[in-house]
């Protein structure tokens, strides 16, 4: 039994791959839905400002608003070599 389950666990079924992909996607899309409508535009504009100084892409910026919109959290991943010069 132990050997059997060892072999079984090595191979992930396609259904469990589907479930994992969906969980990530649905969580992301629900989050998008609950965001205020101006957020994508604001993200673009903030990114444009940052891009004037450092080389960043859209994926490097994460903007989160908490539920009642009182805290704006901005995470920018700066490139390793450049940035502070």
């Amino acid at each position, binding site marked *: 039994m132990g050997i059997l389950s060892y072999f079984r666990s090595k191979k992930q*079924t396609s259904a469990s791959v589907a479930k994992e992909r969906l969980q990530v996607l649905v969580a992301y899309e*629900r989050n998008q839905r609950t965001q205020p409508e101006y957020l994508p535009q604001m993200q673009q504009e903030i990114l444009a400002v940052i891009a004037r100084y450092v080389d960043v892409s859209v994926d490097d910026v994460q903007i989160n608003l908490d539920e009642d919109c009182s805290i704006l959290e901005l995470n920018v991943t700066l490139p390793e070599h450049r940035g502070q010069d």
Partner: protein
Amino acid sequence: MAEIIVVTSGKGGVGKTTSSAAIGTGLALRGHKTVLVDFDVGLRNLDLIMGCERRVVFDLVNVINEEATLNQALIRDKRTEGLYILPASQTRDKDALTQDGVERVLKELSETFDYIVCDSPAGIERGAHLALYFADTAIVVTNPEVSSVRDSDRILGVLQSKSRKAEDGGQVREHLLLTRYNPSRVQAGEMLSVEDVREILAIPLLGVIPESEAVLKASNQGQPVVLDDASDAGQAYLDAIGRFLGEEREHRFLEVQRKGLFSRVFGRKG
């Protein structure tokens, strides 16, 4: 006052019209006066599934435009007592539907019917939005497949923000109807299980309809599948209708039905 039920999904081809026909017929079989309204203007098919395609004279858009009365447009089902069909228009596009017009028709229908079952078109555009806008209850038809589950979640978002109930601070009652379920593929790890889909969508489960040959056979003949009460799909729909009406019914057809010779000889696996 009638209860307005929308049968919706976002994605096309998952079984909305089959389910609308089955649920509407099932409710009428249980003694509730029911009308099936096809919202798929330009691509109507409910009439074909219900076998009344040759009896269509006037349609929903005619009633909205006051070119016909509701009584002229309603088609009485010949097999099931208390069941009526309001077909969609085949020639006009979806912009022919107006919110005021739809509201007026639904209001008039709710004076004489117990249930109004709205068969939504696919997508999240105008037709789909109007089909769900006035709903009290939504039956979200989903296949155990990634794109269908994603689109169902999307339509749940629309129900929770853009329906009239939501705009008034209320909530549309949501039900999950999982269709085209194949237990043997689930067992083999090739298909999302009912538990997987429930976990992702997080809404109450109304029923699971097995993938069944009876569905095509029924649509070939223009007969809702619940009338084939010997079939697995027909029984699964009847169970779902029982649950909808508040009955406790165990979910069936979730396990592999027929045992092969191998498993019969060697007993149950796992």
